[in-house]
């Protein structure tokens, strides 16, 4: 009896989580003329792949923008985070903990509270409407979380290891290169997944700081779906395209994804 109830509940929950996906795929595979509201749940006959081609053509520049943006900002912020975490975990100085705490505060602010000065600043330095501006912004506002993850990770590396390398004559960068960096792969994976997902999915900065030619895919999708004239097959195919990279990360690196999620859970 209890088991029946349990599986019944899980089945219902699975439907709640998967039915939207079913509908999205269905709609993306329908001929535009056949997308009528009362037949939305019917499987397409025949299956129509053309929407994906159209959506890909429409979204390819934005998809490329997103890829360039997410990959370069992720790489940069992982580098910054590794160095910061290394300093804070292995070379603390007086007041470094306070500075770290002040840094962490940047994780919690709602970005609406700095959006107007940020907009002016990016405009003033001539980066408004470029991908560079957006990369800069993502790297800067990523500093708290990536520093946190690396600092926590590097705290686990025994100090004796660093001490031994120092006695052998290694300096600040020598120790980083030869002792710390070779041990860092898991932290890099967690940070890379976290930042890539966040930046790929981000919308507020993107919509405020870009022009059409530098828009990432989230902005383009929101604008396409918001228009009334478009048939739904395009937004749905576009949604699948926009979701694919982060979904693949989730499916293939799920364990790390979850770890990053819990590590960054206070950020939201």
């Amino acid at each position, binding site marked *: 009896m209890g088991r029946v109830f349990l599986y019944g509940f899980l089945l219902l929950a*699975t439907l709640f989580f998967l039915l939207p996906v079913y509908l999205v795929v269905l709609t993306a595979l329908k001929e535009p003329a056949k997308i009528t509201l009362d037949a939305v749940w019917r499987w397409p006959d025949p299956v129509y792949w053309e929407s994906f081609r159209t959506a890909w053509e429409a979204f390819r520049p934005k998809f490329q923008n997103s890829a360039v943006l997410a990959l370069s900002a992720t790489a940069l912020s992982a580098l910054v985070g590794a160095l910061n975490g290394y300093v804070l975990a292995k070379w603390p100085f007086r007041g470094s903990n306070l500075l770290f705490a002040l840094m962490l505060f940047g994780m919690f602010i709602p970005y*609406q*509270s700095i959006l*107007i000065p940020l907009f002016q600043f990016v405009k003033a330095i001539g980066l408004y409407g470029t991908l560079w501006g957006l990369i800069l912004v993502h790297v800067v506002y990523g500093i708290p979380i990536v520093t946190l993850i690396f600092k926590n990770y590097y705290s686990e590396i025994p100090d004796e290891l660093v001490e031994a390398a120092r006695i052998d004559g290694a300096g600040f960068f020598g120790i980083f290169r030869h002792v710390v960096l070779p041990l860092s792969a898991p932290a890099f994976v967690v940070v890379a997944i976290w930042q890539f997902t966040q930046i790929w999915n*981000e919308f507020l900065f993107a919509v405020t700081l870009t022009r059409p030619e530098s828009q990432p895919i989230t902005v383009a999708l929101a604008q396409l779906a918001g228009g009334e004239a478009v048939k739904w097959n395009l937004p749905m195919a576009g949604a699948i395209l926009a979701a694919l990279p982060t979904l693949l990360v989730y499916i293939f690196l799920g364990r790390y994804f979850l770890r990053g999620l819990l590590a960054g859970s206070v950020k*939201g």
Partner: protein
Amino acid sequence: MRDRITAFLVLLPSLVAVGIFVYGFIGQNLWVSFTDWGKNPAQALALRPELRFVGLENYRELFTGFVDVRFRQSVVNLIFFTLFFMGGSLGLGLLLAVALDRGPKGEGFFRTVFLFPMALSFVVTGTIWRWLLQPQGGVNVLPTLFGLPPLGFPWLTTRAQVLVFDWNQLPLYTAFVVGLVLLYLGWQAHRAGEGKRRFWSLLSASVLLLWAFTLGRHVQLLPYPEPHGFSLALVGVILAAVWQMSGYTMALYLAGLRGIPVEVLEAAKVDGASEWQTYRHVIFPLLAPITLSAMIVLGHIALKIFDLIFAMAGLDYAPTDVPAIYMYLLAFRGNQFAKGAAIGILLLLLVAVVVIPYLASQLKKEVQR
């Protein structure tokens, strides 16, 4: 020594960047919120606008001014959205976690399914659910697959409101709720035997409640009644947000459930506790700290929710407005930068009220360890 200097120099750029982009910008935003930038359209987009200091005028207008009625509805929307979104995500997340903890077959599959929306952008979720919630399609025709009549709820396009109250009563309700919370804190302090904390919470609670029952009833923010309520167009948005985030609470709760020592559960069994009693008196109390952290995270997301609503209803639809949307609309569509900045500061204050005590308590725990 040289290495120490190198270490500091390596950290320095990040410190400067955070200093400017977080603290500098917050300061500048605060200053902008005290000016009249945007009042005069000719000045609004000027390269070097002449800004006049107007003090708290923008804040006053937002809460009591004639033109900003939409801001006030957005605040009410935010309150209801936060409550239902948190309640929904926590409730569903807990149910899912308890179900998975009972070891059904295919647990890994279910976990993957419940968690995948987390990998999506709010914009993707919003686009999907916008389509699902079309008045004559999607969810509404779902019952016809089982031979039932279709639903007729217009979801995102409804203008209906429930739980309507007069904006003038807001200070009264706020005082009332805060007073009750303080009473509760006092009761907790009493049980923990902390005399000082009990005294201060009881004192401030009684002052607030006294104010609410005497002067508070006569406070008039506006010269006329202004009804606001829970906008039913938000139901669909809440549904989508819960769909996206309840997998996250499930993951948190599941980790918590798996962390409960077996001896504790066995002790409860030996004491003859029924299954329900074990949950009620042993397991749920142990999950309370997780609930608190999840509430902080979800509350934080709720306060700045923007992309989901942008993608589901757009910027221009007042019934689903929240302060983050209205802020964007004012500043980047209407060039009313000062007022937009004021909303940004209000959101920051709200987040600070939630996050700072939490951080402080976490820090205290860390020190004690």
